[in-house]
């Protein structure tokens, strides 16, 4: 099999444009999903840490089920099989949207929420109980103690794992191509199909993903250095 490289074709004409469109869709999808996942994940953590048994059980089974099934299957479930269980008004709203894009966002955010809930829980539990007791003893109310003492510490610990969850989300969003969302991987596949230059197409899209993740890990390192004083001289 003979293969001749042609890098110019990837950047010429509409193909370069396709990559940019794909990147934009990937970022838009990941951006919306991370916000929804954070909201849902926080909600799950509250249920998980509440002392009310049915709520704890609900949160635990949600987290375990979504973490232990493949995202691919979840995407297919939402896309093909969710029709009988969704309420009517939600379906009516959903069908007015770009259905593939909306389904991908539902799947990605419900999946990522389960992982975020675990990170949040371990972050909050890592703050010693005595911190709360001490701040209550100095005369702060529960809410004040949470707002001024516990949460500022918990967030400092939680932010790096949250950022890496976002990174996972960006990588996971490539699975949305299976239901026809025109994101970066879909576009690479498309360029490959049109030009028969798979090597170039996949190298370019890999480099885009790589620069995204390098940027994010650079941010995590900077954050750790500045706020957690990890990896710097003390």
């Amino acid at each position, binding site marked *: *099999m003979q*293969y001749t490289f042609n890098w110019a074709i990837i950047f010429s004409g509409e193909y370069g444009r396709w990559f940019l469109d794909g990147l934009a869709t990937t970022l838009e999808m990941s951006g919306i999903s991370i916000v929804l996942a954070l909201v849902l994940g926080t909600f799950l953590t509250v249920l998980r840490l509440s002392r009310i048994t049915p709520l704890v059980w609900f949160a635990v089974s949600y987290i*375990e*089920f979504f*973490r*232990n*099934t*493949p*995202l*691919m*299957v*979840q995407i*297919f*479930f939402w896309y*093909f*099989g*969710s*029709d*009988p*269980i969704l309420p009517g008004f939600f379906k009516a709203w959903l069908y007015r949207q770009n259905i593939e894009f909306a389904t991908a966002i539902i799947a990605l955010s419900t999946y990522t929420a389960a992982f975020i809930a675990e990170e949040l829980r371990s972050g909050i539990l890592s703050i010693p109980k005595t911190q709360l007791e001490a701040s209550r003893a100095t005369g702060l109310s529960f809410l004040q103690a949470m707002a001024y003492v516990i949460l500022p510490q918990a967030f400092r610990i939680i932010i790096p794992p949250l950022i890496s969850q976002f990174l996972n989300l960006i*990588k*996971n969003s*490539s*699975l949305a*191509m*299976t239901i026809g969302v025109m994101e970066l*991987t879909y576009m*690479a*596949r498309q360029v*490959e199909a049109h030009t028969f230059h*798979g*090597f170039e197409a*996949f190298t370019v*899209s*890999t480099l885009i*993903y*790589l620069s*995204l*993740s*390098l940027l994010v*890990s650079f941010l995590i390192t900077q954050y750790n250095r500045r706020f957690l004083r990890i990896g710097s001289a003390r």
Partner: protein
Amino acid sequence: MDSLWQWCTGLFANWGIVWRNFDYLLVGAYPQGPLGGLAMSILMAVVGIFGAFWIGLGAGLLRLSKRPWLCWPAILYIEVIRGTPLLMVIFWFYFFAPILMGHSVPETESAIVAFIVFTGAYVAEIVRAGVLAIPKGQMEAARGSGLSHAQAMIHVILPQALRNMIPSFVNQFVSLTKDTSLAMIINVPELTLAARHIYTRTMKAPMEIFLAIALLYFVICWVLTALSRRLERHLARYQARTAHGR
């Protein structure tokens, strides 16, 4: 109330399709045709984790080396793979294997190679963390008793480090089992593709079909996750005891 009743009965109406095609979900067209379904998923995961163990062990140890020409290739491999979606890695091997080898490569094989290379990078990080967690004094004492660096690594550090890594390996195996579902993209006949086939053939009961395979994946992954948690607790106790005995 009636509509709620209909909704509930609707949830249980179509499970017959799943039941009638259950053997297809478990083993695919085997023995008349090629192996597929859940058996194929598990096969890929098991072969994948064995391959990834050796690649990851090698890359993880190279990553720890102080010589730049050993450590930088390992860093490059680990960071590139960890920054790339698995789907992309699967496509690399699917499209480049024929170009590199000069002949066509079966999808299943290129998928397994992709899984080995992808998971290897994550195993390498586990190995690195595991070795770094062993107290420095162990290496110094082993070297002091006359062992070479390699001997100390093989006979003193790795046996301890690998034992502590077992829960992480199990977790990585769980991830890989879930990841094998991506092989359907290049038409490997594993569980998720089997489900798609059944749905395409019957055009019925998508909820039941995808819920059924989700449950199959869940049972495997959840049992293994529970096992790894138990192992972790067991190892923590074991370490606490030895630390106490010192």
